[in-house]
């Protein structure tokens, strides 16, 4: 009769199985249905779609600026100075007669690459510090977290200013400075995730399985901690681009005549009353990048990008 009991359970379990997965074709079908639903869902959220399209365009500018802007962003022609936007120069020209559209395209590239570099730096360094603090605990945790707290108290832009004045001017240095200001945020999020996962039963099971610490970090903690961290990274890209533009605006970034969005806004300031387009187009480009990345990051956050 104990056999009967076992059978009962197996039955119940298999019933659950059939329900849970089913045949592979069905699964594939379900996957396709899910993709279809996702597309329909996007169509129902036009702002998300616009944000994605805009970011796609900006990424294309970054990868191949020459395809989108045929004119040389550095070519000056004094006879064509301060032309308003028109068919020949979509965004108009600046005081030296350079085509503003192609300067915006190339400038976006500079800003976006610097922004990605900054976020990558913050992500990598912040994750390593957060993971160490969270997993090892003890005095390492105490020391690292106190340092992070001090960094968090200092306003990000001020911190970046301080760092860039030590490192010297230039786009890369600005990116590093912005990245350093982003480290505390990542360190804290990663530490919190690691603490959560460290307490989970599957990590305990891995410890009793005889797994060594590096293997546990690599196989259990990193994959499970990554979704919220990646959402934070996506959110941070917009902010990083903005910070880099701000620092360039202040003159710490790319040296003229290289195009950079923040620097372009700064230069256009002198002609604000006569040539509105000089500040408007680079400024609008920055604003839209920030808005689009945050819109997409929020969508990722809400969908829970679970593994």
């Amino acid at each position, binding site marked *: *009769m*104990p056999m*009967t*009991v*076992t059978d*009962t*359970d*197996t039955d*119940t*379990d*298999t019933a*659950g*199985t059939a329900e*849970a*997965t089913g045949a592979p074709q069905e699964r594939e079908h*379900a996957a396709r*249905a899910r993709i279809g*639903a996702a597309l329909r869902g996007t169509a129902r959220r036009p702002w998300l779609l616009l944000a994605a399209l805009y970011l796609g365009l900006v990424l294309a500018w970054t990868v191949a600026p020459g395809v989108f802007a045929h004119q040389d962003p550095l070519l000056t022609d004094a006879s064509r100075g301060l032309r308003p936007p028109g068919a020949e120069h979509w965004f108009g020209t600046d005081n030296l007669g350079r085509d503003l559209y192609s300067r915006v395209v190339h400038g976006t590239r500079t800003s976006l690459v610097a922004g990605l570099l900054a976020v990558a730096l913050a992500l990598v360094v912040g994750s390593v510090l957060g993971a160490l603090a969270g997993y090892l605990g003890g005095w390492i945790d105490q020391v690292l977290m106190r340092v992070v707290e001090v960094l968090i108290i200092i306003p990000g832009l001020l911190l970046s200013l301080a760092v860039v004045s030590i490192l010297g001017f230039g786009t890369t240095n600005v990116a590093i400075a912005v990245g350093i200001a982003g480290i505390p945020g990542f360190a804290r999020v990663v530490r919190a995730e690691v603490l959560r996962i460290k307490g*989970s*039963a*599957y990590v*305990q*099971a*891995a*410890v*009793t*399985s*005889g*797994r*060594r610490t590096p*293997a546990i970090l690599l*196989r*259990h903690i990193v*994959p*499970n901690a990554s979704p919220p961290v990646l959402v934070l990274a996506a959110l941070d890209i917009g902010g990083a681009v903005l910070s880099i533009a701000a620092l360039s605006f202040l003159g710490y970034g790319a040296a003229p005549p290289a195009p950079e969005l923040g620097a372009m806004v700064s230069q256009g300031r002198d002609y604000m009353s006569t040539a509105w387009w000089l500040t408007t187009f680079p400024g609008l480009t920055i604003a839209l990048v920030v808005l689009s990345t945050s819109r997409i990051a929020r969508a990722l956050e809400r969908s829970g990008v*679970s*593994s």
Partner: protein
Amino acid sequence: MSETPPLLTVRDLRVSYRTRRSTVDAVRGASLTVPAGETVALVGESGSGKSTVGLAVLGLLPEGAEPVTGSIALGGRELVGLPDRELRGVRGREIGFVPQDPKASLNPVQRVGAQVAEGLRIHRLVDSRAEAARRAEELLADAGLPEPARVAQRFPHELSGGMCQRVLIAIALAGQPRLLVADEPTSALDVTVQRRILDHLAEVTRDAGTGLLLITHDLAVAAERAERIAVMSAGRVVEEGPSARVIGAPAHAYTRELVAAAPSMAAPAAPAAAVRAEGPETLLAVEDLRKVFQVRLPNGGRERVAAVDGVSFTLERGGSLGIVGESGSGKSTTAQLLLRLDRPDSGRVVLDGVDLATVRPARLRRLRRDIQPVFQDAYGSLDPTFTVEEAIAEPLAAFGVGGRAERVAELLDLVRLPSTTRGRRPTELSGGQRQRVCIARALALTPRLLVLDEPVSALDVSVQAGILALLARLREELGLSYVFISHDLAVVRQVCDRVVVMRRGKVVESGPVAEVFAEPRHPYTRELLAAIPGGLRAPAPAVTAGTANAAIPQEKRLT
């Protein structure tokens, strides 16, 4: 009794939930009646739709539920289709609700007195704030809370789970409802607290003539507390009738299955450890184990609490030792110490002559092969990013054992899982299957000792019975030893040959299961045994034939 119309009549109730992809029929034709002054238990496993019935009666179905069809009549008044404005007048005033999770069901930032008074004020049962406060204290006193005036000033986190549940009962009874719906009111509570709460509910309903719809997964609770039982399975009420008949002579196959699966104190006990020719040999000796935690007090101070305080026991090779106790007794901390997931402050854990408490880390890692865990939360103990195969192979990979694919196939076979589950992830498995995967992983390195921390408490009874049968078979086939931690004495009796009773970090009693359960010496053990629903205290000859209590042993003897 049969002349008077029943208080609550549910007829052919149907509820469906809309999900993103499809519509799920949660309740497909449920009918039951609750007469005034009687207790009706609605019994079923998780997903059977029993909670949905309770919510439908209250008109509190969550968003995404399709409009209800069928009929719910309270004292002749139809509730289905009633506008929400009128239902608000019914809820609290005519139907009270006692929810499942006492801690989560109270507002954490409001004093409990104010939460009891809220219902009174909403239904305009009191004229002034002062009267509401006074009446709230009376209700708290009626709910069996000592010093109601002081309790009313407390916040929920300052009260224990049992006290919170009493507050919820006070809230439910504030409007003097005719019907009380209690959804698993004691499932989150310890067995001794459960008994007091259920006693109190029975008293209140008897005195006031209130009908009680008791939704529970626990057949023993239903048998003990309810006049009538309705059994739900897959959205349908498959059987309804007087408790004694439903338990004693179940008509429906599903009810028979449930009755058979329920662990009972009258079921045959676990076989004793296989005695070897050379006599019993000690595998694990725990000596004077101690673990102290620093607890931060609400007033900012710190207190040292000994979670495990001088625990000693031994386990012989092939033996099975149960550790029982209520929450906070230190049994799970003991498990953590045995597995060396935590370091004891003092004492020894001697496995095969080696003290795990002081051994060097590298040696400890090698010794982990011999002692493996199975945790309560099977879902939480599987990494969501791992497939079943990866999870089971993990210990093998950690020790660089070759031939993993074959070993995984062997282990799946051992725990009776189909080989098709290999590539699945934990979310694609049922609760019972997940626990089987965890057991397979624990067995991968052919350990000598399994530490099982409440391995079946999160499972439905029929699945639970399957896992317990599996554990019994594995112990016999592989010569394993178990340390089996549980709050459920009936389960321990079924699996273990020796038992240790823990309370507040100390061992209050230990010995062979049969002896301890038949003649408990410590008052706490007696209290624990007495609190088991169904009152199935050991092989009691005094049980009258024909009652619900006697029915379970009869059914169980077949197994």
